[in-house]
Every structure is written in structure tokens, then in C-alpha cells.
């Protein structure tokens, strides 16, 4: 929120970058899912790639714009609804999940996304994840995991590696990071996947699978913050540390092997776990009302 512009690259660079990106995609019809507002992200930020994958997933599933609703928290990631040509709700820091839950329960006809940064989802909003997962609310949750607080300029987040120096931990982060995939599995999510901002095709497939999954879909995307993380989750480091799980489809439903895969590095990318049989929350409610 309060980037000191003296640190910034010149506007021209950014404007050129955006022009170029826009030109590249202008022809492509998934662009209709993009709103006319220009992203305010830094040039090179991984979020551009995530959004492209998102637009493409919507396009390939041919979702009606007015039936999409993207709910986000606060952070650089929180801005995403601004850049989608659909309904959207930019809520409070950490609260995309409760709002998305209420929205989905109110309007089962909508395709509801919840989007959050790592600070948003695992820090301040970390108390909501276990419950949306165990309830199996039918929303698609996308974690923009850059292992840093971007918008507030570079403090440690719940996924910042141990000992990393950040603006809040100048001599090193004393906290052991959380493993979001492990958490999602432990909470009993019925769909757990990981993508990587440098792999648009993989992300698109995962997001599509998440949308099609009836129940809570947890999608972690590994992505760099090019401005406030020069050492850890950089494009370079990511490229070197990501491998494909080749799990896109069919997805495994074995929790133990998923847990094991979650522990590994290089980071596996793909679908770790999917339980297609488990009814969504609203299906359960209906079943219980009928059975009573």
C-alpha cells in the first residue's frame, strides 16, 4: 500500500511492459475475461501469469461472466477481482473465505472463487481454512503464495523460509514456514493442488479441475514477488525447484501418498489429492433434511 516510489523502476519500463503484454493477448479471446482496468502489479510479478491462466480456464469452460464471482482479501493478490470482467468482492485482509462461503451458500448457481495471498490465507485468515475445507463448501480457492507480504513491502509471511532476512526480521525469520499443501490435506480438503506461476498451461488445467470439482478446491500457486523478494522465491529459484507431478488427471485420492508428496522438494506441481465422491456442503444439507 505504501511503496516508496523512490525505490521504483521508472514508469516507462512498466508502461512498455504492460503495452507489450496487452498487445500479445489482445487478439486472444480469453482476454474478454479481463477487465479494462490495468493491473497495478509490478512488471515481472508472477500474478500476471496466474491471471492469464485464470482467464483461460474461464474461457475454456466458457463461464458466463455474470455468473463468476471472485472474492479476495487484501494484498497485491487482493486486487485480482479488479482485473476480472465479472462480479467480484475485494473484502478484508484474511476474509475472502467467510465472504465466499456466505455468497456460495446464498447463490449456489454462481461459480465462486476465493483468492488470497499467503499472509491473507495462512496468517490473519488462517482460522477460516480448516472450516471451509471440512465443510466442503463448493468454492475454488486460489492461494497466491509468494512467501512474503507484498503490499506492505516485504515482511515475513507464514511461508517465508526459516532464517530469511525480511523487513520484519532483519536478522532472519525465526519461524518455521507452514506447508500449505500439508495443511489443506490435514484439514480434509477434497481437492488439493499446486501450480506455479511460470507454468500457465498447468495452472490453467488445475484451475479448470478446481472449478469442475464439486466441493472445496484448494490451489496453491507458487509465485515470485519480484520487488520484495530478491533471494528466496525468485523466478530463477522457482524454475529450479519445481517439478511436475504429472498428476493432472486422473487425480489420486490417497491421502497418505499426497502427504508424502507434499513434503518433497523440488516442489511437485499438479493435483495432490481429489475425492470426487464426497458431497459438497449444500448436498449434505439437502440429504440431511430429506433424511430427517
Amino acid at each position: 500500500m505504501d511503496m516508496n516510489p523512490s525505490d521504483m523502476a521508472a514508469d516507462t519500463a512498466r508502461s512498455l511492459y504492460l503495452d507489450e503484454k496487452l498487445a500479445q493477448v489482445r487478439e486472444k479471446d480469453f482476454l474478454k475475461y479481463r477487465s479494462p482496468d490495468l493491473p497495478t502489479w509490478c512488471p515481472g510479478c508472477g500474478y500476471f501469469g496466474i491471471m492469464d491462466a485464470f482467464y483461460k480456464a474461464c474461457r475454456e469452460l466458457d463461464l458466463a461472466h455474470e455468473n463468476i464471482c471472485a472474492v479476495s482479501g487484501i494484498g497485491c493478490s487482493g486486487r485480482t477481482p479488479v482485473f476480472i470482467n465479472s462480479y467480484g468482492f475485494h473484502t478484508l485482509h484474511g476474509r475472502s473465505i467467510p465472504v465466499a462461503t456466505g455468497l456460495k451458500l446464498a447463490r449456489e448457481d454462481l461459480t465462486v472463487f476465493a483468492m488470497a495471498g499467503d499472509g491473507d490465507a495462512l496468517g490473519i485468515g488462517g482460522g477460516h481454512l480448516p472450516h471451509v475445507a471440512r465443510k466442503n463448501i463448493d468454492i475454488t480457492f486460489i492461494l497466491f503464495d509468494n512467501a512474503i507480504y507484498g503490499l506492505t513491502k516485504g515482511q515475513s509471511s507464514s511461508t517465508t523460509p526459516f532464517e530469511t532476512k525480511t523487513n520484519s526480521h532483519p536478522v532472519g525469520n525465526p519461524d518455521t514456514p507452514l506447508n500449505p499443501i500439508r495443511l489443506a490435506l490435514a484439514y480434509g480438503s477434497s481437492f488439493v493442488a499446486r501450480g506455479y506461476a511460470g507454468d500457465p498451461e498447468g495452472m490453467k488445467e488445475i484451475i479448470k479441475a478446481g472449478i469442475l470439482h464439486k466441493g472445496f478446491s484448494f490451489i496453491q500457486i507458487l509465485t515470485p514477488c519480484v520487488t520484495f523478494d530478491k533471494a528466496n522465491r525468485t523466478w530463477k529459484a522457482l524454475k529450479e525447484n519445481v517439478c511436475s507431478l504429472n498428476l493432472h488427471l486422473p487425480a489420486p485420492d490417497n491421502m497418505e501418498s499426497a502427504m508424502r508428496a507434499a513434503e518433497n522438494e523440488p516442489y511437485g506441481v499438479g493435483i495432490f489429492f481429489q475425492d470426487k465422491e464426497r458431497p459438497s456442503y449444500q448436498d449434505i444439507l439437502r440429504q440431511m433434511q430429506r433424511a430427517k
Partner: protein
Amino acid sequence: MKTSDKDINIVIEICGSAGEGTISAGEILSRFMSAQGFEIMSFDAYPAEIRGFGKCVAHTRVSANPIYSPGKLADVLIALNDNHAISQLSALKKGGILIYDSQPPKPHEEDESVVAQADAETISYGVPLTMLAQKAAGNARGRNMVALGALTALFHLDRDAFTNSIKDRYGKKKQIVIDSNVNSFLEGFDWTKENIDKADAISFQGVTPPQTKAEQTEEKLIINGNQLVAKAALDADLKFYAGYPITPATKIMEILSKELPKHGGTLLQTEDEISAIGAVIGAGYGGIRAMTGTSGPGFALMTEFTGLSVMAEVPAVIIDSQRGGPSTGIPTKTEQSDFNAAVFGGTGDCPRVVLAPTDTTSCYDATVLALYLAEKYQTLVVILLDFFLSNSIRNIDVPQKPAPEMLNANIAPDAADLAGYQRYKITDSGISPRTIPGTPGGMFFATGLEHDAYGRPNYTDKGHLAMTAKRFRKHANVLNEAPAPVISGSQKTVDIGVISWGSSAGAAHEAVMTAAEKGISGAGFSSMMLSPFPEKQVKAFAGRCKKILIPELNYRGQFADFVTRIINRPVERLNFITGRPMASEDIVEKMKEM
């Protein structure tokens, strides 16, 4: 309502230990009186611990005329447990009636005996409660019923009708339970008829209740505030309730967990109150009516989200049923100390609508109004209940269902609005036509950031001013839909004006009437809508009052401070934080002193 030939207006208290059937005896008594056609108001006081040796009091006021407050002192005290009843003697009127166990399980020393401690003027009737219960059912459990039998005999109540009330109460239990209770009641009745010489003047003989029983069954609800809020919400097309348990609001969720699904709605028990209000706002954004309920601690947790509702202009209704504060405070006592938090609690310039029902019936009206206002004005509405309103029981006329225009209040954009749709269009009323997701061409996104007419983040000075002004304009317009303030007493210049709110208002208006009988010229003012507040009306009212008195259940007068600011003059305050509801008697006392 017919008024009776002979008036009845008494308070009966039953006092015992937790587990002695105190509360159920009170409940049966209230239901019986209501069935007889009387007005009732009753509430229970009980310990806050799940288990405890604690004292219970079932308090019931019975009257042939409208009731505005529960009555401070009892005419009759039924002591199921001498120990606790001794501490309740101070709430018995001078010359009141005491019914006690004349042969308690172990004989009491003088200082443990309620009859010994009662003052000389008390009319005491000893009934061998334990012994008669033993005789009727083989154990002491029916003591409470024996006492009700004695009461019935003493006051010439209808024995058979009372028996039926007991049967109704235990209707679903095993036959032996019904029999034990009925037999205990009859033992008490018979013994009293034979053995007691009546020394008091209370009698229901010759009293024509204001309503015959036939009329009553069609028209009366015996209900407390929580139940009525739930009923109103269902009648007002609530489709979503998210909640987290907390005294005294839990029951609203529990009732709706049964009822909402039958009405096509959804009940969500969340992991905390933040999530509850978040889900309500999500559902509100989705276009359906949604509500949550809580008490002080939970309301405090919702503070951040209250700002989002106001800023993003998404409807949300929160019920805060107040209890003793601050912090966890006193969960099972009533208080009116969340006024400031409700009216001023958000960060930033954050106008919020606050309604406080003043009695059981108005719980219904406030709920219907809240859901309507939240939807129409796309904003936050807080309903301030309190422990007393939530839990005290009245028999009331079945409320009128809301008019159709109350049920569908969203102002949707027309085709012209949808061309270049501005979700947050600056309008005179402050209300901008609102699409709900699924509407083609009406897409927008909502945000807690300041934004322009399209909803896009915008931090310019002009933009922020225009949007802030719009939000306040909208808020001010809500006042046009406020129920007219209730004004009681004289219409002329008076010595004392009593301005009140919430559950204290009934006692305040009653006090004005009582004081008038005693020659004090007074008038009363209360408004269900606290924010925005009917400032013009209260100024006009204050203008004809030489002195102003503001009674409320908090320590220093949170509402009094608020009113002082509006009327720009000092006021007298009457504050209690005893955990008991406001008593008109105390207000009258204060008026006399002023």
C-alpha cells in the same frame, strides 16, 4: 382488549435452588395466567455456571391491563428453598405474602428460616411442601407443584384449568411424571383449602380477565424476544443466518437451525463471529436477506466487518443482545452498555443504523425493519437487544405479517442504469441501484477501499468526499422510515421529560403514567431508532420539559451523553447495573426527588 371489572396487577416470585423446579413452576404459572386471559410478563434469574448451588428466581407479573415493565417488588414470594428465599425477601413488598415450607427436610434454625426472617407485616402461609410432595409422589421433587396448588387455593384460581396447564406442560413426558406433578398440585390445593385461613386480599374471584380463553388461543403468543426475532426474520424472508453460540443470543440460532431449512433458507454455524458476519455480508452481496446474532464479545469481534458493510454498501444485519460488560463480563445478566459500541464502534467515518426494540412486540417490528432497511439502504443495521428482552416472556397479540413492500426492498437498476452501469452512482437519496450477481451487464466489484462510482479504487479528495457524503446522506434518509417516537404522558409543558431507550423504555413510560397519578407532570419519549436519531423530535420534546431524566442500564449514561449532545443541555441520569431490568418504581422515585 376488555378491561376487567375488578383489577388484578400482581407480581409472583418463586425462589429456589437450581434443580428445584423453580423455573418450570414459573413457566406453568405464566402459561396458566395467559390462558386465563391475563397479560403476563415473566423472566427468570439463574446462576451463570452450568452447575451450581445457585439461586433461581422465576418472576411473573400478572395483570388485567397492559404491562410495560416487570414490576420491581413482588406481592407474593414462594420459597422453595429458605436459604435463597431469605435473600429474596428484600424484593417482597411491605405487607406481601410469603408461602413457605412449614416442614422442611431438616428443621431450620431461626436465622436460616425464611419465615423467621420475614418482617412483621408479611402475611406468611406455611404449607408442608416437602411432606405433601412425598405423600403425592414418593419423593420431594413435586414441591414446586404443591406450592402452585397452595397458590391456586389461596387466590381462588381455577383448579381444573390449572391442572390442565400442568398436563400441557408435561404432555410429552411419561405418564408417571404427569401424575406425580398433578397429584402434588392437588395435594397442595386440598391441604391449603382445608388448613389455611386466608389473611390477604388477593383474589381472582370475580375478576373477568380481559380476554376470554376462546379469543386468546387464536390471538396470543407466549413468547420471548429471541423467539420473536426468529419468527420475524422468517416472516421477513430471511434466507441465511450465520451464527456462533453466545449467551443470550444462542437461542436465535438454535431456533433458526430448525426453522430456516423449512423456509428454504440456510443456517451456518461458523468457526467464530468474524466468519459469521463475513458470511452474512457474502450472502448479502449475493442478494438474499442475511443476519447474524451475538452478544458483546462477538459484536466486538465483528467491528472490522461492520466497516466493510458500510463502505462496500452491502446489506448486513447484526443482533447484539447485550449482557453485563465489559469483556466477558456477566453473561447471564441484563445491561444496556453496548450503546456506544453499536453507535460509535467502527473505525473511520462509518454511519451505521442502530435499532433498539423497547419491548417484546417491538422485537418483531425491529427485525422486520432491520432486514428491510439493510436491503434498501445497502448498509449495516444493528439491533440492540438485551438479556432481559431476549429471555423475558410475554403473551402478545400475533404480530401482523410484514407488508409486501417490506419484503422486496432492493432498488435494482433499470435498463438505462445498466448502460455504463455505475454501481455506486452518486444520487440525491444516496442509494445507488444495485445489481446482484448473475445479472448480465451489471457486473461490478465491491471493495472496502474508497472507490469511484464504478467501484474502482479511487483516493482523490473529491472522490472520497463525494462518497462519504453519499453514505451519510443515505444514512440520514433512513430516518424517514423510522417508526414515530413513542411519546407518553402530557402533551403540554411538563416538569420532567423522561427520555429512554431499549428495554428500559417500558418502565420509563409506565413511570410517567404512575407519576402523573401522584401529581408529577411528566412526559416520556423513546425511539426504536437510535442511529440515525430523530434529533428534531427529541429537541422539540426536550423543549417542553423543564427537566430531563434519562434512565438506563449502564454505569454513567452512554445514551444520556448522546442525547445531551443533541439537546445541548445537561440532563439528570438514573443508572443501574444491577443485572435486573429497569423498574418503573425507581424512575418514579427519582422523579419525586427531582
